[in-house]
C-alpha cells in the first residue's frame, strides 16, 4: 500500500522481540544511539520504556484539573442562575443562595467533567480513534496486542538510513527486522 507522493519510500523499520526485557534493552540502545523518532509497542504497559523513550509529557493532569474546575463552575453556576436569578423560590425561609445545600450537585459536576476530560483528553492526545496506521501493515504486528514486543524507527528520523538502521536494529538481537510500508 505504498503512496508514491510520500516523503519517504516507506514508513519505517520495525524490530520484533519476544520478551519485555529484550524490548526495553533495545529501546534504550536505540535512544542512546541518537534516534529520536522511535516508538515501542507492547501488549501491556512497561514502565521502563517511558524513560527509555524520554517521554516527559505532562499534559494529561492539567487538562483534567482544568475541566474539573470548569465542571465546578458549571454546576455552581447552574445552581446560582436557576435558584437565585431565573426563578427564586422561598422554600422554608432558606436563603436563595443556600450554598451548603448546593455542594453535592457541584461536586458531582466537577467529577463528571474531570472524568470525561481524562478519557477524551487521553484518547485525543494519543490521536485515537485512528482508523489507519502504517504499523498495521506488518502482519506480525497483530501479536503486539498479544505476546510480542516491537520497536519502530520512523523513516523521517534524521538519523535514519535504510541500510544502516536495518543493520543497527539487527544488532539488537531481534527475532526479525521488517520494513513498515506507508
Amino acid at each position, binding site marked *: 500500500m505504498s503512496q508514491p507522493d510520500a516523503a519517504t519510500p516507506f514508513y519505517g523499520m520495525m524490530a520484533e522481540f519476544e520478551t519485555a526485557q529484550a524490548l526495553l*534493552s533495545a529501546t534504550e540502545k536505540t535512544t542512546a544511539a541518537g534516534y529520536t523518532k522511535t516508538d515501542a509497542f507492547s*501488549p501491556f504497559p512497561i514502565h*521502563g*520504556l517511558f524513560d527509555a523513550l524520554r517521554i516527559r509529557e505532562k499534559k494529561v493532569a492539567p487538562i483534567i484539573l482544568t475541566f474539573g474546575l470548569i465542571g465546578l463552575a458549571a454546576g455552581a453556576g447552574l445552581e446560582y442562575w436557576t435558584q437565585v436569578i431565573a426563578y427564586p423560590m422561598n422554600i422554608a425561609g432558606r436563603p436563595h443562595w443556600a450554598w451548603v445545600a448546593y455542594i453535592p450537585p457541584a461536586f458531582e459536576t466537577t467529577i463528571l467533567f474531570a472524568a470525561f476530560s*481524562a478519557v477524551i483528553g*487521553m484518547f485525543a492526545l494519543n490521536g485515537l480513534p485512528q482508523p*489507519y496506521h502504517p504499523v498495521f501493515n506488518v502482519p506480525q504486528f497483530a501479536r503486539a496486542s498479544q505476546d510480542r514486543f516491537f520497536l519502530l524507527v520512523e523513516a523521517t528520523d534524521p538519523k535514519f538510513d535504510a541500510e544502516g538502521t536495518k543493520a543497527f536494529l539487527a544488532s539488537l538481537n531481534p527475532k526479525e527486522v521488517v520494513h513498515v510500508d506507508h
Partner: protein
Amino acid sequence: VDESQFPKGDFRAPVPVLTAGHSYRSITDQLTGIVLTKHSPLAWYFIIAIAFTLLSGLGVALSWLLLKGIGIWGNNVPVGWAFDIINFVWWIGIGHAGTLISAILLLFKQDWRTSINRSAEAMTLFAVACAAIFPVIHTGRPWLAAYWLFPYPNVMGLWPNFRSPLIWDVFAVSTYASVSLIFWYTGLVPDLATFRDKAEHPLLKKVYGVLALGWRGSARHWFRYEKAFLILAGLSTPLVLSVHTVVSFDFASAVIPGWHATIFPPYFVAGAVYAGFAMVLTLAIPLRAMYGLKDFITMRHIENMAKVMLVTGLVVVYGYACEAFFGWYSGNGYERFMLKNRILTGPYHKFYWVLLLCNFIVPQLMWSKKLRNNIMVVFTVCMFVNVGMWLERFVIIVTSLANDFMPSSWEMYHPTIWDFSTFFGTVGLFVTLMFLFVRVLPMIAIFEMKVLLPGSNPTSTHDGGSHP
C-alpha cells in the same frame, strides 16, 4: 506480600493471585477463547434462559404499570415509598463494589483486584441500570421524568429545587453511571485491540476494531493511558463514596423517625460495599466454575473478598447498634417507639430479626479460614447477605413509614404481584446483561493479567541516562 518470608507449606503463605505456569500466550488464548468461540457452556444457556424469562416479566409489569399507573403497586398512604425505593437503594448499593475494586484497590496497589475488576465494573453498570429504572417508573409517567428530574429550560420556566436531596440523587447517580461507563470502556480498549487481532471472522474483526479505536499499544499511548487511568481512579473514589452518601440523605434529611440520623451516610456506604462484595462473589463463583477460570480467580480472591465482606458487615452491624443507641438516647418518644416497633412489637419486627440473622450472624462464619476456603459456604453466606441487605432497606423504609407519628394514619403495607414481578424482573435484567457481557467481552482484564507475569517489569540495563 513478600512470599519468601513464609516457610514452605506455611498456612500463612497466601495463594498466588495467578496460578504459576502461565505465559502471555496462554493468558491471551484462554481469555479470548471464552468469547471467540461458537460454544457456550450448557449452564450459560440454562441461566440466561431463566434470566430472560424474568426479564420478560419485567416487560409485562412495566407495560401494565404504564397502562394503569402506580395504583397496581402496594404503595399507599402513609407507605408512599416501598419496593420502588427499596430496590433502587439495593441495586445502587450493589454497584459500589465494582468501583471500589477497580478504583480504591487500584490506588492501594492491591494486585489481586486484577482478575475481578472488569466483571465487577460491568456488574456496577448493570446494577446502576437496574437501579435507574425505579426512580423513573415510580413517577408513573416516565415520559415526564426528565421534566421532574433534570434541570432543563422548560416552557413553565421552572427549575428543580437544588436544596433537595432528591435532585442531589439525580446528579450523583447519573454522574456515577456515566463515569462508571467510561472507566469500564477505557479499561476495555487494549483488550478490544487484542480481540481485533485475535478474531477470525471479518465482521467480528471490524466490530472489535471499531471499538478498539485503533489502539496499537504504543509506549507513548500507554504512558498517557496509565496517567489518565490513575487519575480516573482517584476521581472515582470520592465519587463512589458520595453516591451512597447522597442516597442516604434522601432519608436522613427527612423527619421520619428511624430515618433522621447522622450515622446514615457512612452506614449506607459500608452497607453498599458489603452488598456489592456479596454480589461480586455471587457472580464470580459460578462464572469461575462455568468457564474454568480457577487459575485466574484463585482461592486468594475468594478469601480476600470474603474478608472484605466480613469487615464491612461488621461496620454495618455497628451502624445498627448506633441507630438503636441514638433512638434510645435521643429521649424522643417517637424515636423510642419506632425502635420498639421495629425490633420487638411492630407488625414487621420478624423481618428485623431475619435481617440480623442474614447480615450479622451468618457472615461470622467468615472468621474461619477453613470456611472461607469452602466455595459452597462462601456462596451460601453471600446469598444470605444479598437477602439481608434487601431486608435492611425494607425494614428502614416500610417500618418507619407504616407506623409514624399518628396512630390514626397508620396503615399496613402489602406488596402486590406487580411489585414482585418488577423486582425479580430487574434481577432478570441484571443477570441477562451480565451473561451477555461475558459472552461478547473479556470478563477478565487480559492486559492487566499479563502485568502479573514474571518478566513483565523489566529493569533498565542501560548504564547512563535512565532512572531506576
